[in-house]
């Protein structure tokens, strides 16, 4: 019944806890960056574990695009209960995943209100995607941007060594 919101509430508490923790130690300057990377790191580890479970029974992926499609469909459905609405790529290692109604942002607003608070709530999900991809063998950098809530775009840039 209320299953869907359990993770959303946990996530909200996680974010506020991390920020409260940092704020109590002073030093407002470094706070933002370390909070975001803490959240991202948490998402990273969780993403690694999740991928292990989700790909247990599926056949191996043909190429990077196949992996991204898996992330957009099965992974997103399992975590956020819907698919990614739009996947764009330049076929050179950059992918843009667009979610028009991102599950963790739906409660914020339907427009531009609280826009500056949004990045905090996207850090964990960026880490999630980065962890998932890293466990599948793709090192990448994941960033997110929001222009109009609750839609957001995740940009994945695959690092080629």
């Amino acid at each position, binding site marked *: 019944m209320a299953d869907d919101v359990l993770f959303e509430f946990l996530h909200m508490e996680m974010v506020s806890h991390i920020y409260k923790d940092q704020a109590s130690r002073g030093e407002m300057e470094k706070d933002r960056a370390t909070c975001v990377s803490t959240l991202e790191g948490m998402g990273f580890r969780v993403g690694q574990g999740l991928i292990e479970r989700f790909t247990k029974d599926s056949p191996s992926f043909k190429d990077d695009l196949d992996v991204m499609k898996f992330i957009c469909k099965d992974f997103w459905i399992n975590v956020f209960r819907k698919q990614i609405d739009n996947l764009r790529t330049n076929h050179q290692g950059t992918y843009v995943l667009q979610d028009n109604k991102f599950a963790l942002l739906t409660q914020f607003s339907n427009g531009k209100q609280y826009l500056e608070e949004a990045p905090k709530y996207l850090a964990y999900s960026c880490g999630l995607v980065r962890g998932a991809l890293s466990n599948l*063998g793709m090192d990448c950098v994941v960033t997110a941007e929001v222009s109009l809530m609750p839609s957001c775009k995740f940009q994945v840039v695959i690092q080629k060594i």
Partner: protein
Amino acid sequence: MAVCIAVIAKEVCSYWAGTKACTPSTCGPAPYTFYLQVFGHFFFSPLFNQNYPLYIRSVPIQNELKFHYTVHTSLDVVEEKISAVGKAMADQRELYLGLLYPTEDYKVYGYVTNSKVKFVIVVDSSNTSLRDNEIRSMFRKLHNSFTDVMCNPFYNPGDTIQSKAFDSMVTAMMVQAS
């Protein structure tokens, strides 16, 4: 990147017996060799091609080096098979190396997960009762246990596997494989 879980169970009866001497008359049917190794890839090292063992287990400890060597050479074959994926295939790979050494026969089986973790099992060829689908089910169990290890918050990807649950699963598997 390979995760090798090497579990080698050479002689189940000597494993059971511990240090007691084990002869065919006391131990029953001929003991089997069984080696399992798990290789991981999480630690990025440009020197080592990212294949390093996360877990190694062999029942009789003697001749372990020989099995390390066997498994490392078999990793090349595994890499070959992974890079040959041109069409959608199941991620189960089988390596049948046959007679690797002139004195003894070993069958080497490999399995690669989607996260590029490799499991390698080496069994003695005199163990003819281990059929293909039994090996497959062993790999499934290994994969399931490894997934559980990955989801354990106290496990950092890249560490050697210390989980007791994993150990006991491998032990049970080795006993069953005899």
